[in-house]
């Protein structure tokens, strides 16, 4: 089966632009964890932008800052050509409705004492979109769209399986007709056989509702499959941004190379003799309180040079639409 992707990409309109964004969490008077440190990227309207990284890389923090759940320390977030902070009054309400978030764990992100009807209608109520019968009809329609039986409208979250609960979380987000959705590891709490169901749902909704996704995950094969472009984060910094195929077929950054080679692969069962060329990284990610000077990856990098210790590598366009922050690609 083929799905026709929304061909809005040609317009190249930036729905979201992040410039030099920083989020520091102070630990004491002098030190702070730089969870997101000077990050810049943009998301085009109608695309799926994947954000990958290991735990502690700051990808979830970045998602939360963009949706306004936590405030930024410094930097700019531009939504539809205007600074996110500069929206006021009704405009601000509209923007709040247009940007929605889907969380990782449907168990803890749904209120166990609320019925499905009220959970899904929470956004509708907050934005006063519909009342009474219309409100119920809107919930009905949303439930049908995400593949939930509308007869279950009076049930509680505990009466649903993990996959169904994630559908409820998705229904809550799309009930207010959003434009931009930040999905933070939406499938990592689900069983393998259920993951594909939810991913297909994401693809369908994107087509039907003309959505743009910022898809945060650590499963690289899934990210490659669902994303148009991918950004790789390591310890608060974006290391590489490229079109999804480019990133996997023409990997530039040594960290991305190691990450991709670490994915366990079914293919290896079929040719056990073949050396898979795995790059085993030494050691663990460093303490985010005291990241190494210069490039944050240099202590684990097999190709580290002297300059990596002294200078923080800046993002540069090494190839067309392929950005990398690594001294190896200095021209």
């Amino acid at each position, binding site marked *: 089966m083929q799905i026709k992707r929304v061909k809005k990409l040609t317009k190249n309109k930036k729905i979201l632009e992040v410039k030099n964004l920083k989020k520091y969490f102070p630990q004491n008077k002098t030190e702070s964890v730089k969870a997101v440190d000077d990050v810049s990227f943009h998301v085009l309207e109608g695309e799926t932008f994947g954000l990958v990284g290991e735990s502690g890389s700051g990808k979830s923090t970045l998602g939360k800052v963009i949706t306004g759940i936590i405030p930024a320390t410094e930097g700019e977030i531009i939504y539809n050509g205007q600074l996110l902070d500069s929206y006021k009054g009704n405009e601000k309400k509209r923007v709040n409705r247009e940007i929605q978030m889907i969380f990782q764990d449907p168990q803890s992100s749904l209120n166990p004492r609320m019925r499905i009807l009220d959970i899904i209608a929470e956004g509708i109520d907050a934005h006063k979109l519909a009342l009474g019968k219309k409100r119920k009809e809107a919930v009905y329609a949303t439930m049908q769209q995400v593949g939930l039986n509308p007869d279950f409208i009076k049930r509680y979250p505990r009466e649903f399986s993990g996959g169904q609960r994630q559908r409820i979380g998705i229904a809550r987000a799309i009930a207010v007709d959003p434009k931009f959705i930040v999905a933070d590891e939406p499938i990592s709490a689900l069983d393998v056989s259920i993951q594909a*169901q939810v*991913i297909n749902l994401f693809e369908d909704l994107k087509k039907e509702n003309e959505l743009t996704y910022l898809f945060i995950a650590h499963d690289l094969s899934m990210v490659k499959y669902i994303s148009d472009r991918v950004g790789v984060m390591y310890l608060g910094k974006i290391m590489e941004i490229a079109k999804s195929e480019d990133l996997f077929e023409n990997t530039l950054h040594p960290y991305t190379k190691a990450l991709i080679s670490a994915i366990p692969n079914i293919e290896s*069962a079929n040719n056990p003799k073949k050396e898979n060329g795995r790059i085993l990284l030494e050691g*663990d990610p460093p303490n985010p309180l005291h990241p190494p000077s210069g490039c944050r990856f240099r202590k684990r990098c097999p190709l580290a040079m002297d300059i990596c210790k002294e200078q923080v590598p800046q993002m540069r366009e090494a190839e067309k639409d392929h950005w990398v922050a690594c001294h190896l690609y200095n021209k």
Partner: protein
Amino acid sequence: MLEVNHLDVVFRTYGGEVKAVRDVSFHVDHGEIVAIVGESGSGKSVTVKTIAGLMQSENAEIRNGNVLLNGTDLLKMTEKELRKVKGSTMTMVFQDSMTSLNPTMKVGKQIEESIKEHTGLSKSERKDKVITILKQVGIPNPELRAEQYPHEFSGGMRQRVMIAIALACNPELLIADEPTTALDVTIQAQILDLLKGLQANYNTSIILITHDLGVVAETAKKVIVMYAGMVVEKAPVDQIFKHPGHPYTEGLINSMPDVSTDKNERLIPIEGSPPDLFSPPTGCPFVSRCKYAMEVCEHHIPPEFEVKYNHFSRCWLHDERAGVNHFNANKEGEETDQK
């Protein structure tokens, strides 16, 4: 070396009996890595916990079956006899190293405890042994690290400590229950490398529980696929990915995109969700989600069919009365390929 025969485990709850493990049989040879895969609730953890003798809780009951380790039945052993086996011949590594290690005890001491329990080494010999093992599992600065507490270790390092404790008495069989699930991929690669090294260098048998088929492909020699408490397929690794013999295994493989999946291809999920184990279906547990289901599947649990040498599948499609179908057609196709 290890043989599990017709194991049945039930949990008694207020809601009734949960049939967590039903008629599970398999064996593990010396120096072999066997992977058990399955979703949450498929009974994979209960199976290995029964093997490791950790299922003596009040509401769990082993209804049937036996577990033979080097010929002796572990389920018939007394508590005292079992203690000797546990930790020396057979050990277990758990998923979550943060909750399995004692947070108030130095790491070196925790490893030493296991050595003290099972060997007659003196205190200084034990100290040396601890350092050797820490080195063996790839922990830098072992002398310093042995004097630290678990919270001073990273997730990957803690998992290495868990493996170190398990290795303290050179076990013949290591049971690892999702040892890398809580870890990042780059750290997962390190730990899997370590496990493979153990098997290669010390001929340790390993049972690896996981839900990641990629991990299975890279480490194991044999795979056991569990679904709703039953073993639905057993096969050598190189067989199962090329020619899965059960619709569930096939569905699992198809539903995962790998790095080479085309983006315009739609994923093929397994529709529906696993059955309720309070009242499992009378027939095949997978019947409601199976696209090849026949009438017989609803009423009778399929027996194990030997599809190929050492490749077993619990699926009625392999019965000759099922006629030519997707699965046996596949097999014939391959035979002609070989000619």
